[in-house]
């Protein structure tokens, strides 16, 4: 019985078996295609990472380019990170004061602010700010170089583009992230203290002494240095997305967007793993 005759006889309005089969097939095809793309992406990232590692450890080293990237990435992000850190400090200060007052634990305010900023908010916020600012910048820059054959020109000049372009940027991100995190933490603590002082006077000396009382290096150093892993993620994903770009201006835009989205996502996922790692091994 044909589909049309079946509808006429039965008056059915639900999908018929042929339509259901086609729908299942197209869904399966879509899922299969996306699955393929997912594994291809990770495979490509793995191959890219291996090429970068090989290029990083074999001479000649691109020291001048590394220093240039340290300056560029650090200076690009510093104002934004400082501003964001300051805002976070004020927000935590206001929220902590309100919450602690409800439980009669106002004396815990300095420690709450210090631990919140240094262990949690400072690192993750720095990672997300940098993944947006630097990730997009690196992704767009390398994508633009790719579509205009500049990367091919570098390779044709007998210069390893993985060493000159990718390794330097990734290393710069790894080295700069912890430093930017320290800046964000410092700004957050300063503005947090200031916001508290406006409501209830508290000397800075007293704030620092209370906040860091009983603290050890293990409480603060691992959360700060875990941002080096964020730097690795941001640099690697942004360089990978940029250097595999195709498709002209549209490809450049896509590379910049994907760099930000994927780097931010992986930074958050990495944070989950790293926090557990730190709790197990350092605290």
């Amino acid at each position: 019985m044909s589909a049309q005759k079946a509808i006429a006889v039965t008056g059915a309005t639900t999908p018929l078996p042929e339509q259901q089969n086609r729908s299942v097939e197209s869904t399966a095809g879509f899922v299969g295609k996306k699955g393929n793309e997912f594994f291809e992406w990770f495979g490509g990232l793995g191959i890219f990472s291996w090429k970068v590692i090989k290029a990083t450890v074999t001479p000649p080293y691109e020291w001048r380019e590394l220093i240039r990237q340290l300056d560029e990435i650090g200076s690009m992000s510093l104002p934004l990170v400082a501003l964001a850190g300051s805002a976070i400090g004020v927000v935590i200060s206001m929220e902590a004061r309100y919450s602690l007052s409800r439980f009669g634990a106002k004396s815990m305010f300095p420690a709450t602010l210090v631990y919140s900023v240094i262990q949690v908010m400072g690192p993750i916020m720095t990672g997300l700010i940098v993944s947006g600012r630097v990730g997009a910048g690196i992704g767009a820059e390398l994508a633009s170089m790719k579509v205009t054959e500049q990367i091919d020109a570098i390779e044709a000049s007998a210069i390893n583009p993985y060493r000159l372009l990718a390794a330097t940027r990734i290393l710069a991100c790894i080295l700069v992230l912890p430093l930017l995190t320290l800046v964000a933490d410092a700004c957050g603590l300063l503005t947090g203290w200031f916001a508290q002082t406006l409501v209830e006077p508290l000397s800075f000396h007293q704030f620092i002494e209370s906040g860091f009382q009983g603290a050890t290096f293990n409480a603060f150093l691992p959360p700060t240095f875990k941002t080096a892993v964020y730097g690795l993620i941001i640099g690697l994903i942004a360089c990978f997305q940029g250097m595999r770009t195709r498709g002209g201006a549209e490809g450049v835009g896509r590379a910049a967007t994907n760099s930000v989205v994927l780097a931010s996502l992986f930074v958050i996922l990495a944070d989950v793993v790293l926090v557990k790692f730190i709790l197990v091994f350092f605290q």
Partner: protein
Amino acid sequence: MATAYDNAMMQKGCQKEVGVPVVAVKELCKAFGVHHVLNGISLSVDRGETLAVLGRSGTGKSVLLRIIIGLEAPDSGSVCIQGRNTAGMALDRMGEIRKSMGFLFQHAALYDSLTVAENVAFPLEHHRRDMSREERDERVRQLLAEVGMEGDFGKMPSDISGGMQKRVGLARALALEPEILLLDEPTAGLDPISSGEIDDLILKLQRERQMASIVVTHDLHSAKTISNHLALLDKGNVVIQGKFEDLQKSDIPFVMEFLKQS
């Protein structure tokens, strides 16, 4: 009838050296998906020779150059550069071979964050670290003077015209004194006067430097001017090779149509 290239060589008193080809491509095949761009191409170029590779757009001419310089790997076949098979060679091993080659990209591919002088100095900074800064600057000045760009050191690529970008690209390609020069559509997108100037420049450089050159172009007039040997590609195959007179005498329909339309 002698071409402009042959006349230039005779003026110089050059003798064509016969021996092992500097660049030899044998049975080269390359496909992108189902699209076969090269189907068993075989070509060779000696020192002091210039081979022009002609054909319609999309017939694999640029892919051939990219395979020779190692930016693409062939599916099969061999690419011999100065006697060494480089087909599919790893990036680091290709480095030494690439130092003896210069490549002019179709759109010059200048580094847009560097000035004209910095673009030309780029290969020298990486491969001639024995040169002092003054020596490097002097070499850059000489190269830019050779291509007629001596007054534009500090300009950015976006500040200069397409023809000027090609000149700077050519200066950069010559920075390491290559023995092999690959030119991808050197006159593409240029007006007839600028095209003629680029042709004259290439001819002058060939006369002085005696490089083995491969020029990919669809400009028959340019090919006649700067080369002494031509190869016409169609559908990934070499339809005909030889001097321009051989193409003129050919009765192959594609060759006759190509000459008629050029």
